[in-house]
């Protein structure tokens, strides 16, 4: 209870600073630099148990911080019980904010709860990405190591341990700081309400809004931080069995991705397209060019199922069709790419018999390249010269071989085997029902949308982001 009073008074002192001309953001900085080592609730141990305690007391001195007197010497630099959970005066934590399920409104709505909920959500995603629980356990282990008296008997080992500790500590601090900033804003808002300081209230609200934007960026960065996420990619759609109806479905899926890519301002080029006999496509490959195209699109790998009354069925019966989606990254020149031997390739051109050469004038210069050792093929017919079709098909082939190699390496790395097999081509990931009811549901995340049209028009980000954060979840709970 005593800590509550102290913090209340600290809040007031912040308010006091404000009225004395301190910028509100700078008044937060001393506390945000400090990471509680053995519990936020106790101010006695709060700031100085971190490595930057000297710096902090310096700052506190500058500000004439009233708690300056509490800062004292400590011998233990590395605490074993790591972080306590940051909370507001009345005990609100990030977890509780999430549990309260405050509705998240548009950014422009000046509702602090909505902002807080959005930020809390982002923080949660970032924590998952860091495998938070695992990170804390590891920190504990490392701290214990560092506190051993004989640590420096093996300088190499000590160096390694302290490096890792430093790096993890940095990551942890970053998040905790962010968390604390959020909660302090909330504290401040309550206080301004009590004090009827509308100017400061709106200023804090603005700060919260800024924070929301920053946290969204951090969240995205956390979601898309896998090795090749920033790459461009190829998206390939293949119609399932079932003729015209499923060819039409494959074309719809391809259109969905084209529109999605346009929404993201990615450039789209059709590399390969094999039309169906009556309608739609048997298969098609598009190249999606732009930052993080692969990071997002990889969430779409798998089989997509459609249920509807087929417009191609005169009997107006309900049909179920499938389309398989594959996504491969286009690795940059810097990454290690699979070396392709020219002698391993078989390059073929399709023509309907005939003598070719001068006998034939056609703008169709489709090329199929087969990588003989793996039997992987790539086709391109949408370029205007055979040379370019070949180059384009080579790029697809390279991308597929790169991915095969990545999959092979990941398989060796047992950690990821699970998620890999689950994401592979052939698993049904989403179902689109147009009749008798209307629903699009992701079978992995249970994320659903009751407006299939919007999804088919490319509004896929909800599905993609929920899958990406679900993947993080799995990563966190698995350990």
């Amino acid at each position, binding site marked *: 209870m005593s800590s509550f009073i102290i913090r209340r008074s600290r809040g007031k002192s912040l308010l006091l600073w404000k009225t004395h001309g301190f910028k509100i953001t700078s008044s937060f900085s001393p506390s945000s630099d400090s990471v509680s080592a053995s519990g936020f609730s106790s101010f006695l141990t709060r700031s100085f148990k971190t490595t930057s305690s000297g710096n902090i007391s310096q700052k506190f001195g500058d500000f004439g911080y009233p708690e300056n007197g509490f800062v004292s010497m400590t011998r233990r630099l590395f605490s074993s019980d790591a972080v306590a959970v940051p909370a507001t005066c009345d005990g609100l934590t990030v977890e509780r904010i999430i549990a309260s399920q405050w509705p998240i409104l548009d950014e422009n709505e000046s509702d602090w709860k909505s902002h807080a909920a959005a930020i809390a959500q982002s923080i949660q995603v970032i924590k998952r990405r860091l495998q938070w629980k695992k990170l804390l356990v590891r920190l504990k282990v490392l701290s214990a190591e560092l506190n051993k008296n004989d640590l420096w008997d093996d300088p190499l080992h000590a160096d390694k341990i302290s490096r890792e500790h430093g790096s993890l500590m940095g990551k942890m601090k970053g998040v905790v700081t962010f968390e604390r900033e959020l909660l302090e804003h909330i504290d401040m808002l309550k206080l301004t309400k009590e004090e009827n300081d509308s100017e400061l209230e709106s200023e804090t609200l603005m700060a919260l809004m800024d924070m929301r934007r920053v946290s969204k960026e951090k969240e995205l960065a956390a979601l898309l931080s896998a090795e090749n996420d920033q790459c461009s990619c190829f998206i390939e759609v293949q119609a399932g069995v079932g003729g015209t109806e499923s060819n039409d479905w494959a074309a719809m899926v391809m259109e969905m991705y084209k529109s999605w890519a346009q929404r993201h301002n990615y450039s789209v080029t059709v590399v390969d397209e094999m039309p169906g006999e009556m309608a739609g496509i048997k298969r098609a490959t598009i190249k999606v060019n732009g930052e993080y195209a692969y990071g997002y699109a990889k969430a779409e790998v798998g089989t997509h199922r459609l249920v509807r009354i087929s417009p191609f069925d005169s009997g107006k019966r309900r049909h179920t069709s499938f389309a398989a989606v594959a996504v491969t990254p286009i690795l940059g020149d810097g990454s290690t790419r699979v070396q392709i031997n020219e002698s391993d390739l078989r390059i073929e051109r399709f023509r309907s018999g005939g003598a070719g050469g*001068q006998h034939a004038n056609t703008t169709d210069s489709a090329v199929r390249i087969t990588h003989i050792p793996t039997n992987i093929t790539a086709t391109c017919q949408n370029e205007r010269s055979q040379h370019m079709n070949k180059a384009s098909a080579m790029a697809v082939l390279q991308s597929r071989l790169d991915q095969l190699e990545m999959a092979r390496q990941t398989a060796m790395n047992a950690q990821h085997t699970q998620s890999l097999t689950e994401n592979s081509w052939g698993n049904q990931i989403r179902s689109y029902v147009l009749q008798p009811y209307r629903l699009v549901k992701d079978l992995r995340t249970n994320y659903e949308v009751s407006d299939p049209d919007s999804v088919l028009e490319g509004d896929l980000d909800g599905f993609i982001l929920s899958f990406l954060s679900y993947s993080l979840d799995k990563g966190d709970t698995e350990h």
Partner: protein
Amino acid sequence: MIRIFPSFRFTSLLSAAKPFCSVACSSSPAREPPPNLPYPEVKSITVSKTPKTPLFLRTPSHVTPLSEVWKWHDWAKDLASSVESSSTKSNDSLESVTLLRELKWLIEDTIVDDPLSILHKKEIEDDDKKKSVKLRASLEELYDLWKQRIENRRPFQYVVGCEHWRDLVLCVEEGVLIPRPETELIVDMVEELVSRDDWFKKGIWADLGTGSGAIAIGVAKVLGSRGKVVATDLSPVAIVVASHNVQRYSLEGMIEVREGSWFEPLKGLEGKLVGIVSNPPYIPSDDIPGLQAEVGRHEPKLALDGGIDGTDSLIHLCHGASRMLKRGGFFIFETNGEKQSKMIVDYMTNDLKHCFSDLKIVSDFAGIDRFVTGFRR
């Protein structure tokens, strides 16, 4: 040996003189040769012709309402889609898939703004309908061009005035053979050779019967700055078009375009060439009437007809190669296929004994034995 068919040449020039379209020549008025005048002899033709400007290089001066463009696009699409059902399934029929792709390219070449805006119609709002786009040809002409493509079977490359070949965009027009995808491989083979042996980069190459200049330009680009290519052609139209293409790629310093039959313009270079490349006419005369409509009705016979068995020009080239190539010099000739390739190799080994080594037959991507290559002993 008869290499020149005056009547064919005459018709090919005639078709070349047919105005491409009214707008095409407006920026660069062409002085066409009077069509009724017979040409007694090649040398006497003095053509002061300017090449036709391909669609994609024209000034986008035709401001057209988007809605009108859509209307044209719908019409063109319908026309393209209807061909397969109407024509009997034979070897010489148009395919909707190909036509629709060509339509996309026609739009790419015609519309200055993002062509996607036209193809993704459903996303365009109502107020967009009032918008206008800048076209490089009038709608009237576009209707006409697409009709020519489908009803007259005019080759797409003549319709847009260009052919994408390797990484090049070459201007083409009636009177000049449209370079074929197979022929790209000639440049690939030269590239492979010169990357292995620098000697070939420094010497003089010849492209005989250059047409649009495709092979000469392709080869010059793989030779690098020290290379030199002499490109010859009998057809004055080809000379104009090839020179224009050479200019477009700023290769005047490396490629010299000379008018005349095969080796005639190369006097003084006997035994001095390091390489000879050629895609000569090789279709047997009897096959000419049965050619695909785009080829038979529109492309110059001069560039197609290879005599009774199609090897007239090829045999001539074999002799020329033995005379003109340096020791160690390289040649590639494109042929009609397996039979001709074998004939040429046999001819070179038996009738031109000890002249050539390493004779090889190389197939194209369709698996047809398309090229004969070898070295001068």
